[in-house]
């Protein structure tokens, strides 16, 4: 089951500042909804623990993340894979950055896809997409707030 999400927002920081924020797991990962912990392996790999819950299915997800692309100050892309509640999730999330007219800030165009595998899709298939989109929106809201 694929959940796709995309959108854009503008912040008053420079593209370099936004890029530096996005590729720093200590800053970026902490914005994930229900963030619980982070283990950094190297400059491009880290594992993040988040609480997940859909109705009676509750648990902790461990997601192995990789900074797949880091083209300062234009683009950052993560891919991740993790297990949760009898299932697995594979995700990609990319951010394209461009300077606003007159260097007044940065436009962030984001897009991603989460592919969910396992019984979660059957147990909570109808809830996954709205819930996933809600969580993504929380992340984006957090990003905007942090980059304000």
């Amino acid at each position, binding site marked *: *089951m*694929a959940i796709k999400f995309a959108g854009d927002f503008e912040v008053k920081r420079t593209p370099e500042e936004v890029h530096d924020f996005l590729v720093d797991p200590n800053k970026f990962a902490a914005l994930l909804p229900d963030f619980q912990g982070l283990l950094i392996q190297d400059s491009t790999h880290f594992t993040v623990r988040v609480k997940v819950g859909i109705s009676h299915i509750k648990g902790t997800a461990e997601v192995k993340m990789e900074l797949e692309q880091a083209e300062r100050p234009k683009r950052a892309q993560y891919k991740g894979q993790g*297990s949760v509640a*009898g*299932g*697995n999730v*594979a995700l990609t999330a990319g951010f394209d950055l461009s300077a606003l007219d007159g260097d007044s800030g940065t436009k962030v165009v984001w897009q991603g896809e989460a*592919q*969910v*595998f*396992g*019984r979660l*899709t*059957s*147990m909570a*298939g109808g809830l996954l997409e709205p819930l996933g989109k809600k969580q993504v929106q929380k992340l984006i809201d957090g990003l905007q707030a942090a980059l304000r």
Partner: protein
Amino acid sequence: MSKKDGAKNWVGQALPRKEENRLLRGRGKFADDIKLREMLYLRFVRSPYAHARIVSVDVSAAESLAGVVGTLTGAEIAAQTQPFIEIAPDPGGKIKDYPLAISKVRYQGEPVAAVVAESASLADDAAELVQVEYEALDPVVDAEAALTDRSILHEEAGTNRVWNGVFEYGDVDEAFREAEYVVNIDRMHFHRFSSTPLENNVVIAQWDPKDDRIYYECNNSFPSFAIQFLSAHLGVHIDRIRVETSDIGGSFGIKITSYPQMAVCALASKKAGGRPVKWVETRSEHITSSAHGNERTFRDTRVALDKNGVITALVSRHIDDCGAYPRYEPLGCVIWSQVFPGVYRFKNARIDFTQAVTNKCPVGPNRGYSRMQHLWFLERVVDICGHELGIPTDEIRLRNYIRPEEFPYTTPNGCVYDSGNYPKMLQVAKERIGWDEWKEKQAAARKEGRLIGIGIGTTLDSGTNNFGQSQIVNPGAPFSGNSQGANCKLDIYGEVVVSVGSCPQGQGHETTAAQVVADVLNIHPDRITVRTGFDTERNVHTGFSGTYASQFAVSGLSAVHGAAQKLKAEMKRLAAFLLEAKEDDLEFGTGEQGPEIRATSTGKSINYWGLANVVNVNSAVLPPELYELTLNCRYIWRAPFKVPDKQKKYGNLTLTYASQLHMAVVEIERDTFIPRILDYVAVDDCGTVINPPIVEGQVYGATAHGIGAALMENCVYDEVGNMLTSTFSDYTPITAMNMPKVKYAHIETPSPHSYSGAKGMGEGGAAPIHTISAALQDALFASGIVIDDSFNNGDSLFRAMVAKEISQADKLVRVEKRV
């Protein structure tokens, strides 16, 4: 109860089921009721992916949990076993199937590891601690896409194609040249569904180190087949595997393929030092990973018809989806041809049949196995031709049905239909439903904008297989014919005890076997004890024993009848000696001291205790010439089959052909698009009826199963192989609440192929699926919609009617007129 006035036989009487007293009081013994000393509990760790490489399996956390006795992984299994036997020739024969995944997983829910613990809940907890790292691969969830081999499931086979064969009979090209009309149908699809028995799969295995034997208590419904797979897989001589079954809470064929789980439980027991290991399948495990029915796509169908709408030839290409592992397949690639022309007379046909593996749950024989898909296809063909040519659907059937006077009827592929009267069934169904009245109501309703359709589904329930058909799919297969064994004895105190190698799951074998023996010995069925349940060590069986494929009424009861006749002959010989009478002077009956044999000329009699006493505990009174009498008679019944012609794919594949004709009135609600059944009739012909309530009950059951499949039950997978209907809330099996009132009727055309005239029944031929598709077709044809799928619910009908996504007649069907 006593016989009805004037009735000569117990066969045919509405005898209450002997099993009822035990089962309705909760006194049945099911596999999960069995608790053994030091028993352990097994839980499988299953794949969330439909297709992925296994990078690593880490069981250390699970094994360190207190109460966990051990774990098993695919690597351990591969090191000590052989892959399961494949029935297919190459390329399917090259597939390596183990009960736990070794290097990759091929369907969601495939077992990857097993955990064994002191309690079931501990095993559950420990299973969650097993860490499996996967690398996702491209899944293929559509059989036609699988045949492109862009993503291959089994590298050792080199292709996703399991089997292909062309079944061609008559002069197809000539028939098309002569045709008045040719109807072309682009694509039709029979959906994937399963069975939901009350009791899921259960296995208890003990690999006893003391004698190096494996003991099974389980609810597998074809144990003689399972032990052949297990013996070769485990490297254990077959006589060292004992399988026992007890009461079974439904199977519908799906429990035939539980042998992989049986293997894992045995290996887990071995690893645990011989402690017994129990596995009880959960409901979601059953839905996702036990077995599903075959999904089938029908492509490029061309139908030749004469000017009267009589079908003269048929050409089509069928693609069968068997899921991730063939297991019982590719037998389904030939079993459909037991009913090659359905109930119709056409002689010329060419069907190109291919089976493919996909990243979905493996299939297994599911009620109506392989034939229902084909019969649904034929019924859709007949219906579509009728609508396209403007011939009423009852009329086009009458023009094409095999005629009553043509029985026994030899089909183009050499099957011999024993008996039947399809026009009469149609007539009975029309009378029961009130055909003319409904036609009037339908016309009036249509003027109001209501969508009401009347559908007919004629189907066959072929019973008692000739296993020689396996040689059509694999000429090297060592199977042919069919047999069943039974034993009938007088016990030491004269009780009549019958044992038979079947494992009933609600079919009333204790009752019907008692009726048969009661007629042979002229005693009341209550005086007969019938021991059913499979036991390789203690009960009579053959390599075909089990309960499947609508055959007990023929194979099982013929064996019982044969054993009872042998016993009767021995009893007569013994009584003639003891009563100093001639054998033809003796009559069987019941006297003041119970069942007895009486000399009519002298009035002297001896009861069964007296007879049994002489043979068992008072044998010094016997003369040497009677030493051979045992009053313990075993009989193996064999079906009179020949090995089919493998090249021509020709021969008699089944002994009896029960038939069903269902009729339904269905309305599609304009607001919700939900189809509602307004009226329903089921007419059954299973030849001589042995026990009317048991037959009627099985007709209701098959009708419920079929209505569920037609309207509610669908195994839905998403594009990456997630099964989206893995719980009852999504799979929505039919319940009594969803059942319409079914009007039941039957006709009897006795079979010349069974001693009693009975035909095997119970599977039902999926008549409701054909019938409801036909009724929906009748409701929607005027809207330009063709029903091209066997599953239709409110959502799919919405998409057909409003979103116009599917089933548009102008895209799907094209009629050529040749004049």
